[in-house]
């Protein structure tokens, strides 16, 4: 049997891809913070990224780790579901209960997947407004964003989805490290804490922009 045909091999791929995606969303969140600097800074950052030909390689890489994470997770989840065909009548409530975040990872993932597709349609493949700074004409993503985040329902959905993403990371971050084989009685609690901190920072960062724009309108 090959490494990628085993549950542990697949879990490790899911974990590595998940950590890669975590790094991406951290950078994405930090980039978005330019909203607080100025519309020009935000648009120029977008222009800097998209005007470089290397963006296609980066996007292909991102798509690959995203698919690795999603496809192997689906395969593993189906195996996991089939491993318990008949359910218990009672769920553990006391000291032996399981955390909700760890139990519902796949459902959080499905909603996050829907959010990402919707998010790409709205922004990446959304309205192409233009703006000129000096000589350079570039996409006015800031304008699109202010229009989108003027809708309270969109802001609400965005905030809920981002909180769910943070919830997903609160288990996923430290779980990936364990799956890759790192566990230490002294360091693991610190890594768990780091996972929580990372999730909180990413969540708060992503929430701050739509709220800022909505409330400033």
């Amino acid at each position, binding site marked *: 049997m090959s*490494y990628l045909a085993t*549950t542990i091999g697949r879990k490790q791929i899911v974990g590595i891809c998940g950590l890669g995606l975590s790094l991406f969303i951290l950078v994405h969140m930090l980039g978005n913070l330019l909203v607080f600097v100025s519309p020009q800074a935000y648009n120029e950052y977008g222009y800097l990224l998209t005007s470089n030909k290397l963006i296609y390689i980066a996007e292909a890489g991102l798509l690959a780790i995203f698919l690795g994470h999603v496809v192997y997770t689906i395969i593993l989840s189906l195996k996991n579901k*089939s*491993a318990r065909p008949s359910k*218990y009548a*009672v769920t553990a409530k006391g000291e032996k209960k*399981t*955390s909700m975040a760890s139990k519902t990872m796949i459902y959080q993932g499905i909603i996050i997947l829907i959010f990402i597709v919707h998010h790409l349609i709205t922004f990446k493949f959304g309205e192409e407004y233009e703006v000129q700074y000096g000589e350079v004409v570039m996409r006015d993503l800031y304008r699109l964003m202010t229009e989108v985040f003027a809708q309270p329902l969109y802001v609400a959905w965005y905030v809920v989805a981002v909180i769910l993403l943070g919830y997903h990371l609160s288990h996923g971050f430290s779980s990936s490290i364990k799956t890759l*084989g*790192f566990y230490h009685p002294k360091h693991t609690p610190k890594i768990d804490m780091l996972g929580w901190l990372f999730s909180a920072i990413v969540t708060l960062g992503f929430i701050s922009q739509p709220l800022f724009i909505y409330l400033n309108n």
Partner: protein
Amino acid sequence: MGGSDNTKINLKLKVWRQKGPNDAGMFQDYDAKDISVNMSFLEMLDVMNEDLISSGQEPIEFDHDCREGICGTCSLVINGEPHGPDRGVTTCQLHMRRFQNGDTVVIEPFRAKAFPIVKDLVVDRSAFDRIIQAGGYISTNTGNAVDANAMPIGKDIADEAFKSAACIGCGACVAACKNASASLFTSAKISHLAYVPQGQAEKSERAFNMVVQMDEEAFGACTNTGACSAACPKEISLENIAIMNREFAKASGKRRK
């Protein structure tokens, strides 16, 4: 016996009854009356069975053997918790004083595709035996038992190996896991032998083969929920699973070369 108390309690039991592997099975209600709080959970079931037999009914089948928490034979999921509500205890060591008069107690078998139900609360855990057969041993002829401490092993390593070796193979980890994963059991066996010098020669093959066998037995994958370790009567640490993940990755790397 000193310290015993004469309190008797009455319980409502909902017990899973299933005639055989292919029967659909269902819960049946029983009244457990005048149960001494000094009884173990299994003794309570013994008393129930005495009543069932004397009234001409089928007794409730359940697994048990040593009744002192070391053999790994007893099982049961009690109110959703494998081996009941207490940590670090097997069902045979769970006492009725843990319950209140009038409580409803739901008793189910360990549920997993890899642990098919034989009858009532008895499940077939031979999948664990096959995982052990895939590599949970050392193939050296050791002759007679050697003197204690004849092989120099650091106290820290001996302690870690012993903690992993404490696994009694009861299957509560599988029963507790939402994925019915056997990762805690398999990893305890892999790390126990990976710690000690006798286990080094086959370390890599062992990790690989035991994981492959575990996958073939219809257990699910680990998602690090920690439910296994919380339910484990021997409180085997999740660290073992990380060790297994690491040893397995190393073994896969070696096989490619």
